[in-house]
């Protein structure tokens, strides 16, 4: 059911249009939502996008494909390594470059650390939206530990450009391995604290349970993937469905929910952090020695003509890069299919008739990063 636009334009005396403007106190970014309210109930919602549009797809058509890597990190800055991974994988598949095994392990370890970092930030920011000021302090503190570990090896705190076509830019050392192992232990000991402080809280339960219910059919019609889809019960994760890199070697579960409401996706993300820790542990145990860059990566990377697709599991859902090449090293067309784009498009249907505070709750559970929607 698409938004009733005519209703928005008609003159209705008992409804008014409220602008949840591009600048608002939630930390989602620059999203503008026009709400048609009847009292406190949101009858119609119209998201207005484009306030963070930065012409990434046009820039990709002007630069050699290899040098688009920093731009991929700017699209979703919270899952930057995973965006790097998808793009590096795309070019490696297209050009037929095979990556050494150590590189795959390093990529998996750093990507999973990035996923945990993204979920921790979402956790804190979502609770801040709901009005809880304490958990964000704890989750950001845990996050800083991850940033310390990753900063030594990648050089940045947020917008990583660590992966290269054919490998990674710097090798990991003993300090990284011991630091990561110490962090795994630390985070595992913090999970009971989070459960105690937050998950059992009666206010959180009343605000999240039965709010914003989704079904697998709705997800298929809108293209929703990621923790929202897994909250409805469909165990669809790119790392299992279309295994890339070396994820098929690791033993991890895919947490799912049952009802598809905000609480389900909340718990799915929470449990995913533990599963990511399992993957990191297994990867550290099996880390082989070897080179960190493929043997022959040409300076001018010509991509054979044709179209290529690379799908990875970003923290928010399925991320797909679609590249159309005409044989040169500059892409002819690059489309980035970001998960938040499809996730956000469901709110007119999901939030129709909800209380305004429930709309805030539902939008936080979608885990949006607006620059990846606007690209």
């Amino acid at each position, binding site marked *: 059911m698409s938004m009733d636009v005519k209703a928005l334009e008609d003159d209705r005396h008992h409804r008014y249009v409220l602008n949840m*403007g*591009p*600048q*608002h*106190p939630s*930390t989602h*970014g*620059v999203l503008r939502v026009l709400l048609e309210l009847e009292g406190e109930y949101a009858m119609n919602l119209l998201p207005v996008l*484009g*306030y*963070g*549009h*930065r*012409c990434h797809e*046009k*820039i990709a*058509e*002007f*630069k050699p494909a290899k040098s688009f890597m*920093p*731009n991929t990190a*700017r699209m979703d*800055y*919270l899952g930057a390594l995973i965006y790097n991974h998808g793009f590096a994988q795309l070019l490696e598949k297209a050009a037929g470059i095979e990556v050494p095994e150590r590189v795959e392990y390093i990529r998996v370890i750093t990507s999973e650390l990035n996923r945990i970092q993204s979920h921790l*930030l979402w956790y804190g*920011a979502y609770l801040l939206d709901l009005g809880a000021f304490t958990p*964000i*302090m704890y989750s*950001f*503190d845990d996050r*800083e530990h991850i940033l310390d570990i990753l900063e030594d090896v990648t050089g940045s*705190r*947020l*917008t990583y450009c660590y992966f290269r076509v054919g490998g990674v830019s710097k090798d990991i050392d003993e300090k990284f391995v011991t630091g990561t192992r110490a962090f795994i232990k630390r985070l595992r000991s913090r999970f009971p604290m989070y459960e105690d402080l937050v998950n059992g809280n009666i206010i959180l339960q009343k605000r999240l349970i039965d709010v914003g219910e989704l079904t697998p059919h709705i997800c298929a019609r809108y293209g929703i993937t990621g923790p929202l889809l897994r909250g409805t019960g469909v165990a669809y994760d790119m790392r299992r469905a279309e295994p890339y890199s070396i994820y098929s070697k690791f033993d991890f579960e895919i947490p799912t929910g049952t009802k598809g409401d905000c609480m389900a996706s909340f718990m799915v993300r929470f449990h995913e952090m533990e599963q990511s820790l399992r993957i990191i542990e297994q990867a550290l145990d099996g880390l082989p020695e070897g080179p960190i860059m493929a043997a022959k990566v040409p300076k001018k990377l010509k991509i054979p003509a044709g179209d290529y697709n690379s799908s990875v599991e970003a923290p928010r859902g399925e991320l797909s890069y679609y590249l159309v090449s005409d044989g040169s090293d500059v892409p002819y067309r690059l489309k980035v299919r970001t998960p938040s784009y499809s996730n956000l498009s469901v709110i007119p249907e999901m939030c129709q008739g909800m209380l305004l505070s429930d709309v805030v709750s539902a939008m936080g559970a979608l885990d949006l990063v*607006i*620059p990846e929607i606007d690209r």
Partner: protein
Amino acid sequence: MAEQKKSLLNVHSYTKECIERYDGASPQRTKISEAPPLIRMKLSDAIFDLCRANSLWPLTFGLSCCAIEMMCCGMARFDLARYGAEVFRPSPRQSDLMIVAGTVNRKMAPALVTLYEQMPAPRYVIAMGNCAVAGGPFDVEANYDVVLGVDKLIPVDVYIPGCPPRPEALIEGILQLQEKITGKRFPFPQNKMPEGA
């Protein structure tokens, strides 16, 4: 695509008016009449400046990646509260510092200028991150939407380069703004990390 490259400042006629108004003026004295106080006493000015500098209230204006570093700055490790600037206000009417953290594009520019206009004087602007300073990584030929630097729209007091700048850089920017307001830089509190952190 249109043959001539569209001017990236051709945003809004209201914005053009603002640029003309602010052009060449210092941030505290604009061409709009800001009536000077009837009595001006150096001592009271100094006291007020000291109070303003040590309790700057920022407006939440995180646009993209730099916003996360701004949030980190307000959290436990980097702690902006020591400098009095932790109270991020959602409303421009209640804030006196606008930290433009992220990329401004042509759709966002009128909103940015409107918010700046709504802030009561004396108001200050920090351009945080390469995008706000001069367009950053988007200053390329293919760009059709990004405004190359927020100082094309509003007057800026402090520029903080970086992509994204570290939280310590933002703290340094705030300290420099304090120095700009009061004329001197305060030695305390300094960012001393505890042992083993």
